[in-house]
């Protein structure tokens, strides 16, 4: 497989934002792929392999994030990440 780079925007939809549980889900999802998955908020970048970098990003509901994925399985990884954000980390009915 070839190395692919993908870049797209997502919005944090769940009311609690990227808090502990959502981060946990995100890190677990990202760990299933070889690709490096980065989130960018303004000038700050977070690595989806690192809980601490996601926690210190502090993305609340409504925040727009740029997702950058680099690696051989970038395409399925992008689908998985997009799915999580679109479904608000399965927390949308909790509001």
């Amino acid at each position: 497989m070839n190395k692919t780079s993908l870049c797209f925007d997502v919005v944090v939809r769940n009311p609690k934002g990227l808090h502990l549980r959502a981060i946990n889900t995100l890190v677990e999802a990202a760990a299933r792929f070889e690709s490096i998955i980065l989130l960018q908020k303004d000038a700050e970048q977070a690595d989806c392999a690192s809980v601490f970098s996601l926690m210190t990003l502090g993305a609340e509901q409504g925040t727009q994030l740029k997702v950058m994925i680099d690696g051989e399985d970038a395409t399925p990884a992008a689908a998985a990440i997009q799915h999580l954000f679109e479904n608000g980390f399965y927390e949308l009915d909790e509001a």
Partner: protein
Amino acid sequence: MLELHGIPVSSGVAIGPALVLDPDGYSIPRCTIKRSDVADEIERLQQAVASVARSLEESRARTSAKMGNSTGEIFAAQLQMLRDPRMMAELQRRISQLQHSAAYSVSQVLHNYAETMRRLKSSLLAERADDVLDIERQLLFALGAVTTNPLKDLSAPVIVLSNSLTPSETANLDRRFVLGFCTETGGPGGHTAIVAKGLELPAVVGIGPFLGRVGEKTQVIVDGDRGRLVLDPDKKTLQEYRIGQEQQRIFARSLEQLRDCPAETVDGAHVLLNANIEFPYEVASCLERGADGIGLYRTEFLYLSSDSEPSEEDHYRAYSQVVQAIGDRPVVIRTLDLGADKMGSRPLVDRENNPFLGLRSIRLSLKNQDLFRPQLRAILRAAVHGDVRMMFPLITTLAELRQARMLVNVIAEDLLEEAIPHRRDIPIGMMVEVPAAVLMLDRFVQEIDFLSIGTNDLVQYTLAVDRSNEYVADLYQSSDPAVLRLIKHSVEVAATANVPIAVCGEMSSRPARALLLLGLGVRSLSVPPNALPKVKKAIRSVSISECQEMAARAMTLESAGEVDLFLAERLRKLVPELTIP
């Protein structure tokens, strides 16, 4: 050897090994390691991570089974933190490149994460900072770097070095082992400083960041006279300080002979020399040093040194202990002065933007009568045992004074009805520590039995300087001409109305300033017990006319600096023994 400077808040010299506290109250070893040990140290770190991960897995299994998955999720999240590749990389970088010990690296890295999270606007994550600190603590335990609170189980003498110490932490220091302390933050008039004086612990505050430069067990010297902290002193410095300590001891012993002499000037003017205390046990040292009485009994310690709210009986027991110990000498009990930098276990006020201008002291007491009433009852009850006087702090308006006095009357009625022994005819006084009270003093004197000038707060409110803020510490001077004018005015008003007036702030404990106060007409001073001998020595070395000349000249000067220079020069002439080299 490294010499650092800060604000001297409690006099004396202490020499001993350092005990460094981090903000959570346990000590972090700020150690570096040998280059050859880097691999071993990384190995140690990995083992610690593995062992904490194991115990988290166990906790998760246990709690998930018992309380469902949501509690277990906390542990799952902590496990994720522990496995964070970036954290691991950063820790290894610090160990291999900076040669920091594993424990030091852990405390630095995780503290940074927690700090960043605390600053986030999203409160949900900000609260999670505690989880990060929790991981830090577990790792440090696994590394064998911390035991429990190092202040709780001391067994050898130490000098406590810390970013800050709260008044209650200071009050709880184990006096058998803590020789002195230094903090990075803090100002000259903060409550921590006052507690340090009460404990007679040499202390220097507001040094600025220095903890990163102190290793475990580093030998340090705290010089509470000159505001100096010496790390790793060389032989010569150590020797000088040891000799200095010895000379101090000899001088202190020579002052002991003054114990039974009256505080009288050479031309026979008698000065009442009382003591300020914070803890009942201090009465013993007051008597040893020949105090005329207790001029200021601060009652907050009951709140600061206990986790639970003190009851009326707790108050009563403490006051009775003081009153009975001091015999027939007077005791001025100041009612609660809580708030701002003095907070007990129960939060009495929400976060205030300007706590020193907020709900503190008498204002807080009048608003929280469930807190104030037990104290007033206890004071009236303890008054049957001796010469008790009651004093209200921070009175700003006549209405406050009237409201407080009315409450005392109501309390006395209650006690009478309940047939509980008490005295209701005790003298009632107020602190003069707000410029508004000074300006209205001609009205206050018509309704009050005695006055006491609290210079600590008077300086703060006159000069608009937060007394616990090290950044403006240089402005915080009781020798400022503006403060001197307010004192002079107060003394004159009191004299005209024939109301006794004392000065009980820290100002009166500095011999040169004490003499200046005599020159301004003050005849009653109240000082920390360890200042009694030197202030008495100063009083007995001068005549009132010399003090008056001193005051007349000081009142013509324009700045605190000029006043201090002049006073220092006069003190050198009049009482050379008291000059600190």
